[in-house]
């Protein structure tokens, strides 16, 4: 019943009921303003209860104030159901087999033109229908693991995805692509970097910053880049594959533990922090940017370790933070705390007693830097040394989110804090590096003549 008046409430619903006008009916509405002809559309749940929305014949939508409506002539009702066209994905025995695991982000999709809703394309047939170029690269198979928004990804999904990867590798897949919303893609990339070790094949995470219902979307190109990487590259790492520049030119392959989303909306939002990406990828070729990475192997061996402790938190320090923030974590039985400290890794003195309590309670406390670039260095100032006395462990140049994921993973494996420390400080997938190369920190400053010259020569 409610679907017949979908989304309408209050005044607007009363008027629709009075004239027996259901959504998807063709109508002629007479109001104090004039006469409007079109189709009644469902109303968004978050919109007010004062207006009725119709799609005019010209394709435009308009809202008409319910209280001004004097009559509705109701015509034919026609509800459309939208489906992505399925075209069998061609199979070529000479091409590598790639598996796409879906977690929820829509990489390919099509549009319900009447409501603007995006309908995800996911099966191989649907994907072939919308990005036919994929068939030139590989034989593609898909499975949908989850259907959650990026921000709702958590331990359950990380563990499930890691296990699914393990199964695919055992079956002898050539490469794996993971479709993911972009907001927390770097958290998942870190989780998979620790849970899936020594993979023989590329594991490539991909998403889109502009949904694929728009002609300028980055989705199709990202998908092609990621599938190409999974099928053809010799890089057997967990990677994030997203736009390099905002232009439609090439993607970057970022190491899963060194990557971060750095802009709320730009296409080229993902950047490798404190290092350089592994490679660039275009539709034509993959070009390496560094040597140190694990090479593709032709066995089916992989270590899946999905241990995970959920009682871990990140504390983003700010001046004048009160100790009750730490105390509340202690009182709520948290087992691990990652601090994103200022500068080289600092917090203020009033927090010390709380940190001392944490140590006494056997809570693992790790220090990272909120500057993102650079190493924690707690010997330079007395305050740093004081904190180490209090049991705070410096985590070198591990990114705060990566340290958080790794601490969850380490505490999942052992209660022994020395063992946790050994795990935390032993690099597994470049989450800690011995050195920051001289081009590992580059944020070009707009306005400088030399930078302006650079961006005038190279497409952003």
């Amino acid at each position, binding site marked *: 019943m409610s679907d017949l008046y979908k989304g309408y409430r209050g005044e607007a619903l009363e008027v629709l009921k009075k004239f027996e006008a259901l959504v998807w009916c063709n109508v002629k509405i007479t*109001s104090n*303003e*004039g*006469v*409007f002809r079109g189709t009644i559309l469902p109303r*968004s749940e*978050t*919109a*007010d209860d*004062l*207006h009725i*929305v119709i799609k*005019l014949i*010209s*394709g*435009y*939508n*308009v*809202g*008409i*104030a319910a209280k*001004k409506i004097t009559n509705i002539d109701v015509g034919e009702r026609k509800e*459309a159901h*939208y489906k*992505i*066209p399925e075209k069998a994905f061609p199979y070529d025995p000479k091409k590598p087999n790639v598996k796409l695991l879906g977690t929820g982000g829509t990489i390919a999709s*099509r*549009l*319900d*033109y*009447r*409501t*603007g*809703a*995006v309908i995800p394309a996911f099966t191989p047939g649907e994907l072939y*229908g*919308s990005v036919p170029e994929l068939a030139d690269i590989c034989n593609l198979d898909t499975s949908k693991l989850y259907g959650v928004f990026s921000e709702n990804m958590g331990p359950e999904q990380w563990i499930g995805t890691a296990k699914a990867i393990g199964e695919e590798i055992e079956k002898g897949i050539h490469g794996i692509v993971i479709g993911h919303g972009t907001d927390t893609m770097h958290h998942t990339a870190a989780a998979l970097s620790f849970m899936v070790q020594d993979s023989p094949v590329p594991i490539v995470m991909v998403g889109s910053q*502009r949904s*694929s*219902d*728009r*002609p*300028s*979307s980055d989705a*199709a*190109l990202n998908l092609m880049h990621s599938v190409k990487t999974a099928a053809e590259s010799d890089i057997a790492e967990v990677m994030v594959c997203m736009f390099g520049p*905002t*232009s*439609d*030119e090439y993607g970057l392959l970022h190491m899963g533990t060194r990557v971060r989303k750095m*802009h709320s*909306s*730009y*296409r080229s939002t993902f950047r490798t922090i404190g290092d350089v990406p592994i490679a660039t990828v275009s539709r034509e070729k993959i070009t390496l940017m560094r040597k140190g990475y694990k090479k593709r192997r032709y066995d089916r061996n992989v270590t899946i370790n999905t241990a995970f402790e959920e009682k871990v938190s990140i504390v983003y320090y700010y001046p004048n933070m009160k100790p009750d923030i730490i105390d509340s974590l202690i009182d709520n039985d948290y087992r691990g705390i990652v601090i994103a400290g200022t500068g080289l890794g600092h917090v203020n003195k009033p927090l010390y007693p709380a940190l001392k309590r944490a140590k006494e309670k056997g809570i693992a406390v790790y220090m990272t830097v909120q500057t993102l670039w650079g190493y924690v260095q707690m010997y330079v100032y007395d305050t740093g040394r004081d904190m180490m006395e209090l049991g705070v462990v410096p985590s070198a140049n591990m990114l705060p989110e990566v340290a958080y994921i790794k601490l969850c993973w380490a505490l999942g494996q052992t209660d022994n804090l020395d063992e946790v420390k050994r795990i935390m400080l032993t690099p597994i997938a470049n989450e800690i590096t011995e050195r920051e190369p001289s081009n590992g920190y580059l944020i070009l400053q*707009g306005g400088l003549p030399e930078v*302006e010259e650079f*961006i*005038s020569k190279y*497409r*952003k």
Partner: protein
Amino acid sequence: MYDFLFKPFEEMTSEDYQKVGFKSGLEVHQQLLTDKKLFCRCPAGKYMHQYEAEILRHMRPTLSELGEYDGTALMEFKTKKNIIYQIHRDTVCTYEMDDTPPFEINDEALDISLLIGMLYRCAMIDEIHIARKQYLDGSIPTGFQRTTIFAVDGQIPYKDRIIDIVQVSLEEDSCREVSDIGHKRVYNTDRLGMPLIETVTAPQMKTPVEVMEVGEILSAMVRSTGMVRTGPGAGREDVNVSVEGGTRIEIKGVPSLNRIPRLTYNEAMRQWNLLRLREELHRRGINKDTFEAKTVNITKQIRKTSYTPINNAIQENKSVYCVTLRGFKDLLRWQTQTDTFFAREISDRVRVIACLTTLPNIIHSDSMGENIAASEWQIIKKHVGAKEDDTVVIVWGDIGDLETASKEIIIRAKESTIGVPSETRQALKDGTNGFERILPGADRMYPDTDLPPKRISEERIINLKQYIPEYFWEREKWYNELGLPEDIIRPLSISKYAMLFKKAVKEFKIDPVLAGVALIQYPKRLKRKHLDINKLSEENLSEVFKAHSEGLISREGILMYMGEIARTGSWDKENISPVSKTKLADSIKEAEYEVSILKVRNHEMEKRIVLSEAMKKLRGKIDGVKVYSKIFGNKKD
């Protein structure tokens, strides 16, 4: 059925247009005078000639409702264009480049729009919804234009009838095209995102001149608000034309209204002649089922030609294709528009769709003798198996483009057996039009999920009502009664000073001709002196008029003080006081004294010099006539 033959433009009568069933409607685009753009806070109306950086994008078609790529989409995809945007930080932010979601709609632009909607006597929309209208040509980096309908069903008077306004929308302006060569199209982005309204009329105009006249009325109406931009590019028209049995064709981007009559005449003729062509094809037994064509690679056969374009192509390792159109003999020379033939329809498609942009891009056997040698035509026709009543078309370029080109030649030829294909066309300088793109499907409009609907409150509408200007034609009627000069009636009726004029005449009792000339002609004179006439605010001018009405400044003083305002932004109104009889006498005495030193012999001449010296002291404050009569006696009155 199509036995009427188009006459030259000048000889066509209303009855002739009635015979072919001429019907035309307008879509008038007008930029609004706002400080900022529509969905971001970049400045509006700032134009840049240089750029600092470039961004490259491709426009990928999205699936339509039926799960198919629609006509336009498919075509644009075939062309595989690299779209380059030239950007400058002063005019463009990350919003226009589709790297930041839209900000809330510009309320200033919305107010102006609502006002214009009310001026058209439209039904106003209570809650506006932002839509996305897809454009795959790259003219907007997102691939769609954000647009919203705020008014429908208006009326404007024309001659003894009413022209219906179907709808009025507020939308963001697109990029300006810099170039489109081969696979690369370049856009300047300064104008992108500026607020624009689009007024759509019903197709109720029956002759080309009517279309222009209705365009003039619409343009004058929006300008009469004083809240729209003027100048090159600020107003642009799209014109829809159809004839009986033809198709509604949209001619895009007509830059000025006086180009409309010839453009619509030529489009009507084109449609009519295409229908006649169909009749001829059917007479020859060629319809969409019997239509036959084939493509052959003739690179080898033609490699020794002396025809330069093909010769150059072969030197560059390109290929040459030949398309045979069965039974089409002489039809590529079938007239479509003034001095334009069916071959142009084909050449246009090859240019736009296959990106073969260097002209000529095709040659054909209906124009033998103008390009390759007759003997070469014979060799080729024999090689491809063309018969006497066939036409062959030759096209050259990269092999990938040739595949598209040869298919497109066949598509366009086959369409001629069906009628007038749906497409948008571009206005050309000579009054003809050329193919622009296949008309997009109805699917190209869908809701913008980035912005919520926006309620237009009744208070907002009531508040705006006080700013609705009188109709310009009513103003003109009054101006005629006042006896204003012919050439300032229309400009004044749509001028931002129209309200001030009324005040000057009714409240300050100023001579209407003086006020009219001051408001319309003086700014032009000052502009010629490179002064900033934007500084002539209604407030400033009102003070000047008031001062004149109080006798503080002379007629001549009006121009003088307007000049001062245009130069400095204000005028020295504090030091204006009426010139008393004593002051006048003193000034003349002073002048006489100064002149007496010069010892001028001729008495008449001496008086003239005194007059000029006295005027220097009194200029702008008192009428020259008064000074004259004081010096010379009352002769001049």
